């Protein structure tokens, strides 16, 4: 890997309340890389990502984005962010188009949406297969569709760096595949991606490198870890037994 670093985190420490959550993390993501941040619940992977986007203050260490110290970084239009488990529904109804347009603000002047901006919003929705729902209220969406809208919101700015916190959590299988396709398109056009994941799942083939956290420290930084246990058995190809639409109705013989 010889691309220039897009994210550079050195010796980062952070606390939540009085509890140390990050205890000296080094993480470098280079241009064009797809890096998965893995770890158990409470390992600090979400905190690490939230520190990178400036939601959690670092108590020590250094952070650079695109080679600029975080404190002086202003070029937010280069970055697309998908927060964890937020709901796009507020106290007032909003359409899919309105929510995704909010992601385009960083590229607009004074928030005025020009033709190019509206086209970018439609393109982002096409990437996640939701363009036909642009006028629908976000309240009417399923969990997976909701997540697709939040990802479109991050893509609307046409970012060079995409940061996603658990994009697959609570997402149905069909939406997971749509998201994997959307992500592949981003990688092909040269985007850099940092993902927090609970398990590699359908994104596994896309991932160049995995960084595993445990108790706020990096314990693995390299190729994605080999699957172990049940998942490592030959023949386990992550096909789950969902009946296709053409499948025969189940006949139990009890009623006929």
């Amino acid at each position, binding site marked *: 890997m010889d691309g220039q670093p897009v994210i550079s985190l050195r010796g980062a420490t952070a606390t939540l309340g009085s509890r140390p959550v990050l205890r000296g993390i080094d993480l470098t993501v280079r241009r064009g890389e797809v890096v998965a941040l893995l770890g158990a619940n409470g390992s600090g992977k979400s905190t690490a990502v939230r520190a990178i986007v400036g939601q959690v203050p670092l108590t020590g260490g250094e952070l650079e984005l695109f080679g600029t110290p975080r404190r002086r970084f202003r070029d937010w239009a280069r970055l697309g962010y998908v927060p964890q488990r937020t709901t796009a529904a507020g*106290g007032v*109804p909003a359409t899919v188009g*309105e929510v995704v347009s909010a992601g385009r*603000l960083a590229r607009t002047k004074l*928030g005025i949406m020009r033709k190019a901006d509206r086209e970018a919003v439609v393109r982002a929705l096409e990437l996640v297969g939701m363009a036909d729902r642009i006028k629908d209220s976000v309240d009417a969406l399923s969990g997976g569709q909701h997540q697709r809208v939040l990802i479109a919101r991050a893509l609307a700015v046409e970012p060079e760096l995409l940061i996603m916190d658990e994009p697959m959590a609570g997402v149905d299988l069909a939406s997971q595949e749509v998201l994997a396709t959307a992500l592949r398109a981003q990688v092909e056009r040269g985007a850099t991606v940092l993902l927090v994941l609970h398990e590699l799942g359908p994104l596994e083939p896309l991932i160049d490198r995995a960084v595993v956290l445990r108790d706020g420290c990096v314990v693995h930084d390299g190729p994605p870890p080999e699957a172990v246990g049940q998942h490592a058995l030959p023949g386990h190809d992550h096909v789950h037994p969902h009946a296709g639409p053409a499948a025969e109705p189940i006949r139990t013989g009890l*009623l006929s």
Partner: protein
Amino acid sequence: MDILDFAFMQRALLAALVVGITAPAIGTFLVQRRQALMGDGIGHVALTGVGLGFLLNTSPVWMATAVCVVGAVVMELIRSYGKARGDIALAMLFYGGMAGGVMLMSLSSSGSNANLTTYLFGSITTVSQQDIVAICVLAAFVILATLGLRRQLFAICQDEEFARVTGLPVRLLNLLIAVTAAVTVTVAMRVVGLLLVSALMVIPVAASQQIARSFAMTFALAIAIGVLVTVSGTTLSYYVDVPSGASIVLLAIGVFVTLTVLATPLARKRARQAAAAAEDGCTLTVPDARRPADDVRV
């Protein structure tokens, strides 16, 4: 239209019109971020400003604006920093503001309980020439802020964390919302009264939500409903001699109930459309349960 022959009614209708626009405009953002009762809190604090205005013999509207802005900024700081026991701090602010107002009013020579009542419940026909100038200037600020920055305000009210990562000056915009809400309270204070201010920020938005599906539609319709109820409520209070504030709020509730009833068939229609749009409906046929009427012989 003999109603327009009187200068005081012209002023009253103008005040009603700008309140009908401004209160739902900022109210939409407050409801969106689930701070529907913030206007009520600011209304309590405003009373101290009114009392101070009487005590110092200055304009109660401007004094209330100053105190409201300070109060709203303190509330916003409590909201964004003091996560622990924020509700207690807010309660102190609300009731302190109310008690302070009553106390200051009783200390001043020109203040009386009758005066207090006109600020608490509104007295649109006593709006003076100076009042109407102040109301229009303040309303212009509110309209500029809420319309001009609607996309930015929408983004921070929808998802503050995401808005920060898009580079928006979130802290500044949050303060702007607080200040705009404070200014709106003082704009509406003479028309509906401090105790009913919040109603005009919330009820038109709630009514509009019954039929709107987008934020833009909710925003526009809430303003239309706001103007409708403030102007008709004021006109009603001229002909029937009832208090303007109470008429306006009751009319707003009437609109809310009407739209809720009208929206029920609309919601059903939308549900049917959604069901028709879903192509991959259930294709698996479930066999009927066996009933005694079937050919079961015992």
